[in-house]
């Protein structure tokens, strides 16, 4: 098992490297070059600009830039090798150990590997701080959505498979066809129109009620949250309903079909007949013998669908003004704030790689036939 996990992690490393290269390519592809945005921004102090330039080595050849951005090279060590490559000494950090090691060992703090993604061009804020601030709302939204999505999809799919061709099954089929064809953002707009605009049952945007609570995430907010946690959670809950519904409908539509098909396949297997022949009640046959096998492909599928949570978050957060990663991305794209863009892309891609890794490991645990 441990060997299997180690092997899978090692396999993920080249992919993670590939991601950093593609993401760095975005910086280079930016129209007008990476510094074009810096020229006349009053919010960027000279100090910051210098720090940015040096940390990113923007006056250096591209391999050195990338090396410093990643945190493999020490920005203090100058010089080139063969015209455009970093000199070997550049890989050594201030404390004499390889630069990419954690700060405590190497003494260096630069680059992605040390959590340094640079500064936002527009606000001057550290990218890592900005992403961390936006991550919490997204994790709340995505987490709740994931739980709702999976539980409903599995229940729907299993029930439809057990009662195949029943009225319920047919209704579920219609729902899944239409739900799967529905553009997420359009559903969001229509929900806002019905439940917020017309019926006034639910809030149309934001994460908290701005009249009664301070902005989410600020120090004041946490003080308010500590004062009346139930009211605060209820407030977020009310704001969550429409975005979560918007986010999960497509996924439930698709996955309930998938679970149904997998469950039907499983129900048709010989071991289900054996279980019946043993005299087990239908409940045990369906939910122990059939479901356990039917969920195996679902695990892999969940891993593959994790990216859609982030993609879906862009859509949903934009429509509902949810202050998360998705909204951050759209704003950063609009304003060419590529340090933020690169940071977001890098973090989400790495999360996707780890989600797939987790799904693989979960599959390995759940299916005894997988050899490690």
């Amino acid at each position, binding site marked *: 098992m441990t060997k299997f996990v180690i092997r899978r992690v090692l396999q993920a490393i*080249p*992919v993670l490297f*590939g*991601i950093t290269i*593609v*993401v760095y390519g*975005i910086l280079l*592809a*930016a*129209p007008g070059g990476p510094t074009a945005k810096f020229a006349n921004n009053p919010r960027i102090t000279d100090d910051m600009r210098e720090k940015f330039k040096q940390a990113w080595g923007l006056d250096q050849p591209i391999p050195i830039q990338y090396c410093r951005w990643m945190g493999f090279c020490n920005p203090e060590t100058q010089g080139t090798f063969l015209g455009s490559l970093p000199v070997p000494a550049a890989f050594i950090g201030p404390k004499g150990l390889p630069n990419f090691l954690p700060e405590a060992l190497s003494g260096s703090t630069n680059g992605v590997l040390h959590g340094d993604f640079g500064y936002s061009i527009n606000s001057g804020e550290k990218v890592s701080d900005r992403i961390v601030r936006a991550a919490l709302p997204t994790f709340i939204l995505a987490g709740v959505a994931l739980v709702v999505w999976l539980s409903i999809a599995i229940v729907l799919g299993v029930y439809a498979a057990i009662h195949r061709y029943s009225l319920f099954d047919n209704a579920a089929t219609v729902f899944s*066809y*239409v739900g*799967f*064809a*529905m*553009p*997420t*953002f*359009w559903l969001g*707009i*229509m929900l*806002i*129109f019905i439940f917020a*605009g017309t019926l006034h049952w639910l809030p149309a945007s934001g994460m908290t009620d701005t009249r009664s609570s301070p902005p989410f995430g600020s120090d004041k907010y946490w003080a308010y949250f500590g004062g009346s946690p139930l009211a605060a959670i209820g407030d977020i809950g009310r704001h969550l309903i429409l975005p979560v519904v918007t986010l999960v409908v497509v996924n439930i539509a698709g996955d309930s079909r998938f679970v149904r098909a997998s469950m039907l396949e499983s129900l048709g297997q010989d071991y289900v007949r054996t279980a019946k022949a043993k005299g087990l009640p239908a409940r045990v046959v369906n939910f122990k013998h059939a479901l356990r096998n039917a969920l195996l492909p679902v695990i892999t599928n969940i891993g593959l669908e994790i*990216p859609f949570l*982030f*993609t879906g978050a*862009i*859509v949903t957060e*934009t429509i509902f003004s949810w202050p998360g990663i998705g909204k951050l*991305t*759209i704003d950063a*794209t*609009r304003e*060419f704030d590529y340090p933020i*863009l690169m940071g*977001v*892309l890098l973090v*989400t*891609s790495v999360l*996707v*790689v780890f989600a*797939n890794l987790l799904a693989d490991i979960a599959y390995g645990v759940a299916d005894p036939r997988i050899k490690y």
Partner: protein
Amino acid sequence: MTQNVEGAGQPAAEVIDPDPTAAEDYEVGLKSLNQWQLAWRKFRKHKLALIGLAMIAILLGVAIIGPVLLPFSFTDIPKPDELVSAGRAPAIGRPMGETGGLQRDVFTLVVNGARTSLLIGFSSMAIGVLIGTFVGAIAGFTGGIVDNLLMRFVDVMLSLPTLFVILVASKFLGNGTVATVIVIFGLFSWMGVARLVRSLFLSIREREFVEAAVAVGVRDRRIIFRHILPNAFSPIVVVASLLVAGNIISEAFVSFLGFGVDPTSPTWGNILSGGLQFITQGNWWWPLFPGLAIIVTVLAVNFVGDGLRDAFDPRSRG
């Protein structure tokens, strides 16, 4: 041997009656059909797929003829007989109502949007399928280090949330023309096809008829195009239908955010985008109808995709 390897992928049902005189009345003789006839027979029985096909035909008709009958120009400002800032609701003569502000006819917009949205959906699918098949075929046929490198690249591309990348690419490269949007969508939608084609190649390469072709010394290129690709065709078609649906929805979203086709030419996403600001004034029909158009299109494409999958599935009977 090489003669009969071509069609060996999907053996057609066939019953050979060893003694015709003994069994004249009782045996059901199945005609020998090739792969395509067999698939078409099964597809025809799939009611939803036929409905989907009809819907796609109608939509294509609307996309081709519609803009001729109901021309649209961004610079033509309509002169309504009654000024209502939120636009007027659907009624006879304006089946989908009017937009807010300029009070354009939503029906005209949706009809004109059909042309762009379908063009983008199908063309970008074609680019994606071409690239994906090419990459997947090379990886699957060559194997070894080439395969490894290409597939790691696919892994990287699949790990990046596609919509993020498309947004950024549209922002950097986009000039709002339909052609650019098609290319961008094509460039970022081939990875799934590549993975599929590779796995198909890996499994078909091991099949007896390919081994036979290799054994008699058929050239690589001929093996790829004449022996393997035709057998990989049906799953690719199914994935292609999913790609059309996905790209139509994504295009709508990217345009909705203002990163897609420039707002002077209508796509369903652009129309929707405009509708958002007037919804608080009670104008629900403006965003409703382009959205319904998307749903109907995607439904139709998915119906056809389902029909194709069943038709090509050797396990299902026609």
